[in-house]
């Protein structure tokens, strides 16, 4: 955890991460654009201001653990891991290349990736295991699990939610990327999740709601430990496809193979946003 984290630095990380996500979505296979863009600030806040991880020693035993349970946002994780220095950003050109290690869903073949994810509903049980292991080892290391909101329709998430509260795993934090959309529509139109905060509370978790694109708020919420004896659910309100106005908040942003024209347009939009920001991100 760094106290010298500058907001402008985090914004710059986010901007580069978004550009790399666009590049991967312009690859021959395309990629999960919307759900990767929605969690950029969440992952940048975690990797640059919260997680105690060392790219030079990615498997250091005392490291904090991050599980990207919404593994379909693998390209978002790859871009952030590259930005954090786990591997050269040039390696991302190998995304979806035959024979390469960058499949759409992440595997531990990639430095910094803890577990294979992509089949939804696996991350929180793993997180309970990581947090339980930390406690049994007498370690203060923390475990973060980043979940999609549509993913919360998987029953195994709630099995783990019950277990975490019952075990009083205060080292465990679940972050829900609440972008409100899944493949076939709005989550509330498919199988509703609300009242979502109340549901987590009823399962015994402390709940914090936050603007999932507000880096300052995310660092603040994620950087400090929660109440003793309770796991924390951070519901991060986000916009699917964030940063690209032509897909923001749209169901079709879920998966995209950007043509050359869309790619140039995306980069132009992201560049313009950076200039307009003046480094504030607003």
């Amino acid at each position, binding site marked *: 955890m760094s106290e010298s984290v500058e907001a402008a630095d985090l914004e710059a990380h986010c901007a580069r991460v978004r550009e790399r996500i666009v590049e991967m979505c312009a690859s021959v296979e395309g990629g999960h654009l919307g759900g990767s863009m929605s969690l950029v600030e969440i992952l940048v806040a975690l990797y640059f201001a919260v997680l105690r991880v060392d790219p030079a020693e990615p498997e250091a*035993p005392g490291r904090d653990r991050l599980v990207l349970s919404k593994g379909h946002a693998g390209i978002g994780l790859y871009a952030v891991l590259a930005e954090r220095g786990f591997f050269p950003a040039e390696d991302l050109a190998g995304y979806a290349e035959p024979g390469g290690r960058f499949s759409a869903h992440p*595997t*531990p073949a990639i430095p910094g990736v*803890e*577990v*294979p994810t992509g*089949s939804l*509903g*696996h991350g*929180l*049980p*793993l*997180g*309970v*295991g*990581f*947090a*339980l*292991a*930390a406690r*049994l*080892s007498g370690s203060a290391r923390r475990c973060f699990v980043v979940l999609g909101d549509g993913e919360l329709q998987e*029953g*195994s998430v709630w*099995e*783990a939610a*019950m*277990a975490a509260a*019952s*075990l009083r795993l205060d080292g465990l934090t679940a972050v829900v990327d609440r972008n409100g959309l899944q493949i076939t529509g709005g989550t509330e139109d498919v199988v509703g999740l609300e009242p979502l905060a109340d549901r987590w509370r009823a399962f015994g978790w402390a709940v914090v709601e936050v603007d999932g694109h507000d880096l300052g708020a995310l660092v603040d919420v994620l950087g400090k430990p929660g109440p003793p004896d309770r796991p924390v659910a951070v519901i991060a309100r986000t916009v699917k496809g964030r940063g690209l106005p032509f897909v923001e908040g749209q169901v079709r942003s879920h998966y995209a193979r950007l043509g050359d024209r869309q790619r140039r347009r995306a980069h132009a939009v992201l560049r313009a946003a950076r200039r307009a920001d003046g480094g504030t991100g607003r």
Partner: protein
Amino acid sequence: MSARACRDAYRDLVPELMAADPRVVCLDSDTGLFAGVDFGGAADRYVNLGIAEQNLMGVAAGLAQSGFVPYVNTMAAFAATRALEAVKIDIALCGLPVRIMATHDGLAAGHLGPTHHCLEDLAVMRLLPGMTVLVPHTADAAEELIRQCADVPGPVYMRLGRKAAPEPPPGLEPPRLGRAQLLRDGADVTIAATGPYPVLAALDAAALLAADGVQARVFNVHTVRPLDAGVVLAGPGPVVTVEEHWASGGLGSAVAEAAAELPGGPRVLRVAVPDAFVPGAGDQAHLVARAGITAEAVAARARRALGRRPVRRFSET
């Protein structure tokens, strides 16, 4: 039948395993198997995660990713099918040293009925890359194989039954993980069996055959994967497999697959549970016999494989 049950042998061993190795954790799923067990100074490493088997496997994986060696307790049906995806992705894909200790395998659940029978676990588990699949036939064998698992770097699935099964005479040598255990030697036909009742049926069948002048070599194939194919297929004669499992996918399939790829490989005939659910009440011994896993059926298959006259017709249903 004063024998110990395999699962009781396992239960009694766990505190010792935990005391000997601080990496060992015991994860339970409300099975009740560990009621009253004193874990001593390791009590924090026994965790009952309730009735939630997908979570159970995921938690085991998270612990194993962190350097622990979890022993995970559930029923075979819930490990092999309900929680299969977690076993596949969280555990097997990562090659983690999780020990899945499954009770109520095969027809061991008896009168509990077909929801609790598990006649597919050997097929399912041996499909998973890196999975070691073990079926001890006695409590002593279970204890021995569990100890030998300490050296297995990847995941292990072990059948532990429910109640004590009839104990066959001990083998000529103690079970060694990965090696088919020779129980009786003979020069005419090979019988390869896995699990308590099948091993007993195989030995009794060998006695029946001997009365007809047919000498059977009998193996206890406690390690279904990796299969000791070289030994099982080395002869003599054709191979009759015996298992408390559906005929598809289990030991018989594994032996047949290996035989098919062996130049001049032996003929393989299977004695297994027919392609149907096994409804109705009855204890394990009753259901196993009703499913046709009997000494007479094994002997009949052996005679057929050798082209001998069938001594008497035996119903296979």
